[in-house]
């Protein structure tokens, strides 16, 4: 049982790579709790958005969203495109 985490933008530098596999955890808050403290804090910051399997979670928060085995969870900091 595992989850795929994806870190975008500056979160990639903090995480040390753009993606990693972690042991399954049932919710976003449980996933974050298992991260290194500095990374956990960064991905919990107010302007970070989340997507599960490419579907954006509405608004911010939603830390209790249910996860399933094999889900891809993306951490999306504020964008700076164009």
């Amino acid at each position: 049982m595992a989850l795929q985490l994806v870190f975008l933008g500056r979160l990639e530098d903090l995480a040390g790579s753009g993606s990693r596999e972690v042991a399954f955890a049932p919710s976003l808050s449980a996933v974050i709790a298992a991260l290194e403290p500095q990374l956990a804090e960064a991905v919990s910051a107010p302007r970070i958005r989340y997507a599960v399997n490419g579907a954006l979670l509405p608004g911010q928060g939603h830390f209790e969203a249910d996860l399933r085995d094999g889900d891809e969870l993306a951490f999306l900091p504020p964008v700076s495109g164009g």
Partner: protein
Amino acid sequence: MTVRIQLLTEPFDAADTLRTFTDALPEAGGVVSFLGQVRAGGGPGGDVEALELRHYEPLTLPAMQALGERVMGRWTLDGLVIVHRSGTMLPGEPIVLVAAAARHRRDAFAAADFTMDHLKSESWFWKREKAAGAWRWIEPREQDIEDLARWL
């Protein structure tokens, strides 16, 4: 009616893209385009050597397409092009081309302007710059958020 929305990982020729678009729309009286290119010369950390745009595959192109639909619904256009690069680019290379063709000039200007404001602030790209050998992530600018508020 031409709508072309692309996310490219390789360099593109903005002038050719614009020519192809314009030639296909002789019924449009006016075409407004915006070309954003990697700026040669000084940034905060010295001369920019390269720029990288990362995207998140499941979100980025779908969001560009949704933006395109929103723009086509808001103005009366004959055509719209949104071409955006991802990956690593060198100074002088195009990053983004937006073009709006319309019967009326004001529609074309507003549509291109709106599209750029929303691409800057709401599309799923993350940008970093290389200067003096070191990469640095670019944070969103306050100005970009203010630009967006003009359309509410």
